[in-house]
């Protein structure tokens, strides 16, 4: 009798527990995404999306081809942004932005694949998100970033993320993103040697070129990155056929003509 009476209560409590667990895990997931959204908004505030749907679609097709194999739960979004600066950005939760300045330096889709894969690696390894979490921990006393829901906290988070992107990550994270980036692109079916091509192209910039200023102040030099990548087993990875590479290079040229 008692059991029968309690059954609805038990079901209700179980339901409540499941709902709480669900919202808790969603809150965790969405915090990373929310942080990423605020950081991406900051970058897009300076350099907006290129207003050409076909070009944005192409970037997303290449990007999603790479991340498909990772089976991660992120909602990946890729964007081409209007600036002559040569750079690419990843923000937590799967937002990836690449500049017109950078894509114009590249010659093949496989080279673009390396750039996007390097950024996807930052997201997967939570490089920026971990910096945000560390900062939050440090600033709990000031209680600015902890109360995540009000406007002033969002503004503080926005400013904090701007600083992270202006200052850059540590060198180790960049080298790791290069290695994991090559791993991701190769797994997806792109040519791992295209990574060498990208870094070679970046090597042609001089230190005082304003277009590469932020890239060079936030990353190890392209030469150091080449040396680090070539000290891996990169040259024994499977190489795709030349036909595919040429096909994709031709389609990349068409993409460049879109904007």
């Amino acid at each position, binding site marked *: 009798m008692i059991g029968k009476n309690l059954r609805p209560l038990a079901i209700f409590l179980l339901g409540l527990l499941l709902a709480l667990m669900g919202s808790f895990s969603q809150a965790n997931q969405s915090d990373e995404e929310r942080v990423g*959204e*605020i950081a*991406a*908004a*900051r*970058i*897009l*505030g*300076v350099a*907006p*999306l290129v207003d050409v749907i076909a070009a944005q679609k192409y*970037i997303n*097709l290449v990007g*999603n081809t790479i991340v*498909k*194999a990772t089976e991660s739960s992120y909602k990946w*979004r*890729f*964007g081409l*942004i*209007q600036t*002559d*600066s040569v750079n690419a950005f990843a923000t937590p939760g799967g937002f990836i932005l690449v500049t017109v300045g950078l894509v114009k330096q590249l010659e093949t889709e496989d080279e673009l694949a390396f750039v996007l894969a390097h950024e996807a690696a930052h997201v997967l390894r939570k490089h920026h998100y971990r910096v945000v979490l560390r900062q939050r921990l440090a600033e709990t006393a000031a209680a600015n970033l902890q109360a995540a829901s009000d406007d002033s906290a969002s503004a503080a988070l926005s400013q904090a993320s*701007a*600083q992270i992107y*202006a*200052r850059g990550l540590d060198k180790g994270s960049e080298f790791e993103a290069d*290695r994991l980036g090559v*791993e991701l692109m*190769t797994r*997806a*079916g792109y*040519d791992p040697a295209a990574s*060498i*091509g990208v870094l070679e192209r970046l*090597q*042609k*910039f*001089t*230190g*005082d070129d*304003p*277009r590469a*200023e*932020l890239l060079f102040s*936030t990353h190890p030099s392209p*030469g*150091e990155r080449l*040396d680090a990548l*070539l*000290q*891996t*087993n*990169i*040259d024994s990875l*499977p190489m795709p*056929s030349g036909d*595919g590479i040429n*096909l*994709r290079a031709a389609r990349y040229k068409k993409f460049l003509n879109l904007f």
Partner: protein
Amino acid sequence: MNISCQRLASLVVRALFMTVTKFPIEVIPRRLFLLSFLLVISINGHSQTLKEESKLFDKPNGTALGASVPGKAPVKILERQGFWIRVEAGGRAGWLKASSLNFSSNPSGPTAIDTGRLGTGNIVSTSAARGLSAKDILAGVPKVQEVHKMQKYVPTEAELKLFSSQGNIVASKQAIEVKSLVSLTSQSVSQQKASGAAGTQSPKSVTKKATDDW
């Protein structure tokens, strides 16, 4: 007066030669000096050094060509095919594995001083560049609606499939892992020393340690 001017000019030219070519001037016969200087400047795309004594090959994955090129020798990159690079070193041309070069010694790149003599490889900066500097990011106003726009461009499963087949993109069926060979060796050695064991380290666990260290 004339002699000292000549001497000074010669010193300047020698210094310039060594800076640009990274080649010890003593190895060039005096009569060929000017010619070699001009030749080096004209072919100079990127200049790197060899990590250690290496043989040149006739083609990528080909056969070795005669004598070795000494370590630290300057090499000029002529072209690249995959992970092989065709270089000119010690007056000879041939192919080398990219990993036998030291790229961070390159005179161009972020630490370079642009003398305007680094050949056609360098990109000349444009003064009208619309930038995205650290200052811009710090002073910028966030645009959340731009972030929401990105959602529109996410491809469907069918679009992705078509894109892959049109571009002949075939996902690799092999397990792919990019491992740092340097830290692998040094870590294996240090871990073996620490444990005093002669057993081999599982490559996966060692790589994990190396990649987590940031």
